[in-house]
């Protein structure tokens, strides 16, 4: 960006050095003298009544410090972000295999492990609900008192009948997306301590330290003011650390034993207990006119939420909000349900329902374009929402929005514009390439930023000028890998003209930072960036005032330049160190930003006002002999407003694309009768270095006035278009339209065989 010193620059992350030299302490790196290890007894039964729990043998084992059950929990013994229906420790019934039944604290992890095996729990199996359709049947056993429906949404706009009557082409299709695991590299971990005054400090992984305080206080009936959560850094999250994981168990163990307590889930335990990406079945019918205008759209969606609510309701809302894609469709009908089953847990995961919705919608767009004989991206461009248009569920797009620009730029890229040439470039001289077929596919996506209507959605930053002229910046959001601490620091650096190494960053700590909302929903760079901008401007004013007094000049005549405050002519100046001394008291500034919200509410969190978008083009190679699919190249054109740091935007984009490849091609938590079948990284297949394609990220920057220097956010929309773009590219390569993820080699071969047979 022209005229800026820090904004838009390829600046190295402020947390990179301590991460490459091994000195940064992640939650799992915390050990303390006198510490005990906590281990959790999991239900293993997907649905059963608990008849009895006998902990006597475990208690007698030498080295066991505590064996805790539901009887030891004083508070409501329940948690959940949206509603509290998940037991901390189950007493009478278990609803999925990962349910926690008992908690051991022991001197070593080996003893804790051994003690787990000594607890005797008697179960009486209950009827299994392992199919979301079954959950909706009238005679199905109720998994929760209020029924099996977590949330449902029914929505109409325009006249769906008339809409379809006016359509020349109608495409009707059912899509099925699978359960997916966040598979962050650091499994859930933390350490809790209690001091002599009863202050409970939990240093752990998470995505919202302040809500964790509330969840612990509520579940354990412990005063909120005596709880301190410290969660600045964690080894990846992607939504999977949004809901409570180990926090309440850590607190319980430390409060009961008064010993420093460590819990660190095994990889297998992670796979079983994690709040996965929801499997969703989407039946969808879309109509368009001959000249390529979308006229009607009908959606039926059924989302498997698993055993407890967590964020299933809000995820369903985003399925609905994004079910029309970023397009103008005047006539719409949506019916959607999220239900309870005994299939593990699902919840927040990068994309948050928009991912599943776009798999369906962006496939529809390509099928329709094919039937209409239109270029798939040109067809999208014809229907796309521009700023001022009304989108899917009837909300006008009033904020900056540039999906049209992302499509334009993607269409001009050689991978799209010259795709026939690119597809012809297979080297057929190599024997292993003889069976390969290439295809190019594209998809668009949009994604709401922030929590939407009806939920508190703000960010707050404080800062202090230190005696040595450095600034300490206090920010309550969490660095989960996205790079937002660096982006936020860049915003402060730009306003104060202060180098990044003179800004000390204090991240999420509920006794030091202000509540700045969740680290989710593509909101942090936008909201916490803006609250930081406001705080920095307030700090700049304080610095000017203090300097003005000292220099005897009007504050308005002073400007901040090169870590000093100077008179306009530059003749007189004070360094920030001198300002700090002149001010006497510590200068402290605060900035608070509320994310703008719509006037009316459709359902919880709907609609959003602020959106990011992204168009991706991918080149795939399908091996028709083995069924394997490789992504050779990907081009992403995101619109996230002003790019604060190109390295971080590219990094998000590249990571989002490779994660989307995993979703499209390999990853699936396989369940059978409520049991997880692949609970290790050799059976749950993640993309590896060999799978990473060449990736180009070319942002279009449509500035959003309300964001810091025009920035919005980027996190989720990087992964949302990837899977449908791959599905479209596969169809282009071999003429087979897959509607169920992941597209494994077995499915490819079966489809090719079926076609040969036919």
């Amino acid at each position: 960006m022209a005229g800026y010193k820090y904004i838009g620059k390829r600046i190295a992350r402020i947390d990179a050095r301590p991460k490459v030299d091994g000195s940064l302490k992640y939650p799992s790196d915390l050990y303390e003298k006198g510490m005990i290890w906590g281990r959790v007894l999991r239900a293993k039964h997907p649905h059963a009544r608990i008849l009895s729990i006998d902990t006597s043998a475990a208690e007698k084992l030498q080295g066991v410090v505590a064996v805790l059950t539901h009887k030891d929990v004083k508070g409501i013994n329940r948690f959940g972000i949206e509603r509290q229906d998940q037991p901390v420790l189950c007493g009478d019934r278990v609803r999925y295999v990962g349910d926690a039944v008992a908690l051991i604290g022991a001197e070593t992890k080996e003893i804790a492990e051994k003690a787990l095996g000594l607890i005797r729990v008697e179960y009486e199996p209950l009827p299994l609900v392992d199919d979301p359709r079954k959950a909706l049947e009238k005679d199905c056993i109720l998994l929760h008192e209020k029924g099996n429906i977590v949330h449902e949404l029914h929505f109409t706009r325009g006249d769906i009948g008339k809409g379809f009557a006016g359509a020349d082409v109608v495409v009707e299709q059912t899509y099925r997306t699978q359960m997916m695991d966040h598979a962050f590299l650091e499994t859930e971990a933390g350490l809790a301590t209690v001091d002599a005054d009863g202050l409970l400090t939990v240093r752990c992984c998470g995505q919202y330290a302040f809500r964790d305080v509330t969840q612990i206080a509520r579940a354990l009936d412990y005063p909120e003011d005596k709880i301190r959560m410290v969660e600045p850094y964690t080894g990846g999250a992607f939504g999977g650390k949004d809901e409570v994981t180990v926090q309440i168990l850590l607190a319980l163990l430390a409060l009961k034993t008064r010993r420093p307590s460590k819990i660190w889930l095994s990889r297998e335990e992670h796979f079983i207990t994690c709040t996965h990406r929801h499997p969703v079945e989407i039946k969808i019918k879309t109509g368009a006119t001959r000249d390529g205008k979308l006229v009607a759209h009908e959606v039926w969606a059924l989302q498997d939420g698993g055993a407890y609510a967590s964020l299933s309701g809000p995820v369903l809302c985003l399925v609905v909000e994004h079910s029309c894609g970023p397009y103008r469709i005047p006539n719409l009908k949506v019916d959607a349900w999220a239900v309870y089953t005994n299939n593990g847990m699902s919840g927040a995961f990068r994309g948050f329902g928009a991912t599943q919705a776009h798999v369906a919608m962006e496939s529809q767009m390509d099928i329709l374009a094919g039937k209409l004989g239109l270029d798939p991206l040109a067809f999208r461009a014809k229907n796309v929402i521009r700023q001022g248009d009304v989108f899917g569920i009837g909300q006008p797009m009033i904020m900056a929005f540039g999906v049209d620009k992302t499509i334009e730029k993607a269409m001009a890229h050689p991978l799209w514009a010259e795709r026939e040439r690119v597809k012809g470039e297979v080297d057929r001289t190599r024997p292993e390439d003889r069976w390969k077929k290439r295809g190019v596919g594209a998809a668009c996506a949009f994604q709401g930023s922030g929590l939407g209507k009806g939920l508190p959605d703000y960010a707050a930053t404080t800062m202090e000028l230190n005696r040595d002229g450095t600034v300490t910046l206090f920010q309550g959001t969490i660095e989960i890998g996205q790079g937002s601490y660096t982006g936020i620091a860049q915003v402060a650096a730009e306003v104060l003209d202060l180098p990044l190494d003179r800004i000390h960053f204090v991240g999420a700590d509920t006794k030091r930072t202000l509540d700045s909302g969740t680290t989710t929903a593509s909101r942090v760079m936008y909201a916490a960036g803006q609250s930081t901008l406001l705080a920095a401007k307030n700090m700049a004013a304080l610095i000017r005032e203090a300097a003005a007094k000292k220099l005897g000049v009007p504050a308005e005549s002073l400007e901040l330049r090169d870590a000093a405050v100077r008179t306009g002519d530059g003749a007189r100046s004070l360094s920030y160190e001198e300002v700090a001394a002149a001010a006497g008291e510590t200068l402290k500034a605060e900035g608070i930003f509320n994310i703008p919200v719509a006037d009316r509410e459709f359902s919880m969190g709907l609609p959003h006002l602020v959106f990011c978008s992204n168009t991706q083009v991918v080149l795939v190679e399908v091996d028709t002999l083995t069924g394997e699919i490789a992504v050779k190249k990907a081009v992403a054109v995101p619109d996230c407003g002003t790019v604060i740091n190109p390295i971080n935007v590219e990094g998000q984009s590249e990571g989002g694309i490779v994660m989307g490849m995993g979703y499209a091609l390999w990853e699936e938590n396989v369940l059978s009768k409520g049991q997880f079948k692949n609970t290790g990284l050799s059976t749950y297949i993640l993309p590896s270095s060999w799978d990473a394609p060449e990736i180009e990220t070319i942002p279009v920057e449509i500035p959003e006035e309300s964001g810091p220097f025009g920035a919005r956010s980027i996190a989720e929309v990087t992964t949302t278009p990837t899977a449908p773009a791959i599905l479209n590219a596969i169809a282009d390569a071999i003429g087979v339209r897959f509607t169920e993820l992941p597209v494994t080699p077995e499915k490819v071969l079966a489809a090719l065989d079926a076609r040969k047979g036919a």
Partner: protein
Amino acid sequence: MIKVSFTVNGRRVSVEASPTKTLLDLLREDLGLTGTKEGCGKGECGACTVLMDGKPVTSCLVIAAQLAGRRIMTVEGLAADRIGKALQDAFVEAGAVQCGYCIPGFLMSARALLEENPDPSLDEIKEGLSGNICRCTGYVKIFDGVALAAKRLRV
């Protein structure tokens, strides 16, 4: 319990431990070197990669009984190593680090790769890092980091 002596980052250490205690746990719990990470405990993710006598190993699969007289290098030892330092600097500059939890393992694999092959092709880099999983970066900037370090080390 056995007593076993080996070197870690050039320093001689002696620990008393169960013969089946993993090198990973010895490093983290007995020696306080928490830079080496655990991602799976089964040798599948590569986060715990260290160098044993110069070769990359997943330290969760090496046990105390195998350690007598061995030379171990961990991420904490990279700054004092020519190739290691170049890799750390290049990873920082190239944007190879996001959440960073997998990075110590990648750095150790890359250290072994560049010692054996100072001028690796992109495919050779991919092969050299194929035992390490990263969930954040999509690998692209990690490849860039290795290539950048290799380029600088060759001049």
